């Protein structure tokens, strides 16, 4: 992907990878993939491949970080050195530190942190392959990993981005669209409570465009939510089938 494409949307209204402007990339989700973690999930969102693992709730170490009235969430977002075209240094970059914070803050409203004071949970997000929109896919996977760990939640959190390329508001930007395009708006959303937990914007949009981008992203979130729920149920379906036996 060295040369910049002239146009991101062709005459037929299709994007570089043949998607329509309001179409998601294919999403595949699996829950409970790691046996050593208390909860885990794996997501493939287009070319993104991301693993999320949750440990806890457990005693906080170091102990002085624990809070007397609530559980502490810790999150580490990390990109594998081989996850991008040019080798990425495995040391946490500025961007990764920021994304760790952003993901943590997107998930925190969904967790009943006040139930288990003085304890903590650790969320590890490992990006194995990146192609734009990793923060969104990470949030979707991490929320599932938390649910899989048996930690009480208000709702699952699901995230999806929208943006502007070639003067058009489109859903779910991939890497090239993000880099060449005009703007990117990632949104994390709790579908049942109808609440937004993450809203960022990178680029320039008019207020009208911004509104339609947010609405489009929420529509995308709802579509991914159906897959997310399905994935979580599939893991526990075996138990369920035995009930009906």
């Amino acid at each position, binding site marked *: 992907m060295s040369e910049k494409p002239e146009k991101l949307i062709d005459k037929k209204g299709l994007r570089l990878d043949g998607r329509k402007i309001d179409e998601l990339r294919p999403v595949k989700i699996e829950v409970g993939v790691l046996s050593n973690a208390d909860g885990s999930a794996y997501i493939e969102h287009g070319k993104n491949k991301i693993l999320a693992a949750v440990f806890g709730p457990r005693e906080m170490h170091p102990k002085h970080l624990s809070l007397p009235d609530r559980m502490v969430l810790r999150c580490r977002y990390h990109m594998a050195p081989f996850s991008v075209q040019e080798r990425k240094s495995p040391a946490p970059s500025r961007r990764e530190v920021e994304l760790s914070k952003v993901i943590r803050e997107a998930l925190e409203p969904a967790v009943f942190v006040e139930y288990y004071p003085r304890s903590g949970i650790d969320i590890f997000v490992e990006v194995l392959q990146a192609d734009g929109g990793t923060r969104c896919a990470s949030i979707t996977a991490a929320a599932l990993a938390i649910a899989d760990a048996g930690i009480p939640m208000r*709702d699952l959190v699901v995230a999806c981005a929208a943006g502007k390329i070639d003067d058009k508001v489109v859903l779910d930007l991939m890497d090239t669209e993000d880099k060449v395009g005009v703007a990117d708006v990632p949104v994390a959303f709790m579908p049942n409570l109808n609440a937004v937990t993450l809203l960022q914007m990178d680029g320039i949009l008019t207020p009208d465009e911004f509104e339609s981008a947010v609405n489009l992203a929420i529509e995308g979130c709802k579509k991914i939510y159906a897959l997310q729920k399905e994935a979580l149920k599939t893991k526990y379906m075996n138990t369920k089938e035995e009930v009906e036996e």
Partner: protein
Amino acid sequence: MPTFFEKKQLVTPGELLAEGDYIAGENTYKEGNKIYASRIGLVDCDNKNVNIVALRAFYVPKIGDIVIGTVVEVGFNGWTVDIESPYTALLRASDVLSRPFKPQNDELSQVLNAGDLIVAKIASYDRAHDPQLTVGEPGLGKITRGQIMKVTPTKIPRVIGRKGSMISMIKQETGCQIILGLNGVILVTGKNLEDEELALLAIRKIEEESHTSGLTDRITQLLKEEKSKREEKKNE
């Protein structure tokens, strides 16, 4: 006042379960007049009370619970015990020695050392303090023999069965002593290894097929079949 689920339906966190005059039971929560799920599990409604039997959970200490834990550290005047919960428990030296503890007279690591397993009761616990254990009752204390097995804590009631029917049946059929830690750790002690293995087999089966109806009968059958199989092998 509608409900949005069928009996024993599998639900995920955040799913809307009922609206109106309902009471939020286990693993659910109420927001306004709506009841939502907070864990993955099977819903059940019993007289306005919406409950979820969680398929995945961890142990939260409760006063009076019998638990099985591992000693992880010997301290100055007691032990730190891992009870498979978000909080580690404390066991005081004076509780074990049943007399005032004097550091110059007693060497704590000779009574209980790191790695030892104990059966204990939760003596005190609240939001602000770690649980404290006690072993000052018959049947509690250091575990010297037997086998340990771990299950999800939510499945312990299933192993006990209605009014203890399941557990007493297994004890009778295998001749083993079984102690159920409410934190999901089970101790099986029998006369010989075979008896213990038989009991573990039955418990593992219960864990896999929990929430099925008529499970006690099927486990009884399983144990009888296994026993006769083993008899045959011996006779050969």
